[in-house]
């Protein structure tokens, strides 16, 4: 298995920029998830409104069933889950720690958003495709190894026999 990533001149700095920009996407968008009004359930707005689009404008029937019968009836739990996942996505991509793992989680979260709002009115479908593709790029280039915490710590993880270090080598 090839375990090194070589980018052409300027490539490492550009991928670090892309990683931080994608982190900013999650940082900014975690900000409007507010538990004070049960994540919009009280006034049917915010996260509750957008999640409900998965039922009103179905994209993928199994996901629609899951949202209608599991997510919406337990919305505060899923609201907190969304808030914490997106907060952590912003944080770990900003620091560049375990970047490939968080890129995969970002792909998953982007897919969930896509399945919720792709057919909703006034949405630009390429926004969601580009979100997914940006995370694919972070995963493919192991972007945390360039000007990120993965780049600092990975050599010591590779030398370590500990199980957490072995996992972090895979996640970075």
């Amino acid at each position: 298995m090839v375990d090194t990533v070589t980018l052409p001149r300027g490539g490492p700095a550009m991928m670090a920029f892309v990683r931080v920009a994608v982190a900013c996407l999650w940082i900014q968008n975690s900000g409007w998830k507010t538990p004070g009004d049960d994540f919009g359930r009280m006034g049917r707005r915010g996260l509750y409104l957008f999640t409900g689009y998965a039922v009103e404008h179905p994209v993928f029937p199994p996901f629609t069933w899951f949202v209608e019968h599991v997510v919406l009836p337990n919305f505060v739990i899923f609201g907190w889950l969304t808030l914490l996942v997106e907060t952590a996505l912003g944080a770990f991509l900003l620091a560049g720690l375990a970047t490939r793992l968080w890129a995969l989680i970002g792909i998953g979260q982007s897919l969930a958003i896509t399945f919720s709002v792709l057919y909703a009115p006034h949405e630009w479908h390429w926004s969601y495709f580009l979100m997914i593709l940006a995370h694919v790029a972070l995963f493919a280039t192991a972007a945390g190894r360039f000007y990120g915490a993965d780049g600092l710590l990975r050599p010591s993880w590779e030398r370590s026999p500990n199980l957490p270090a072995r996992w972090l080598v895979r996640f970075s």
Partner: protein
Amino acid sequence: MRAPDRFALALGVASVLSAVFVFVHGDPWQLVKMTGQAVPVAIVLGVLACLAGALRRPPMQTTAGALFVLSALLVLAELAFGFSLTAGSASTASLWLGLGIGLVSAGRTPREP
């Protein structure tokens, strides 16, 4: 200056610069909610991180990182329990958590002799 020290310095500078968002409101440019109560945290911990990087002090980098992580957890506790000290949002918590994770990583990076 070695890579982990430069990384700590960069994260400290980013924190100090983030204070400018106290003057920025709404989409698309308000990347993070920075209130009057949150600005001192961003500046004081940011300067601490800058000093830790410039002076090449790994324990100081770890300390600054731990303080950022605690500040992020405080914001999340504010959101959960409805009290207001920093008056931040999850975006504030996300930024501070990222800076904290980065600084702890810098402080824990082994320095080759």
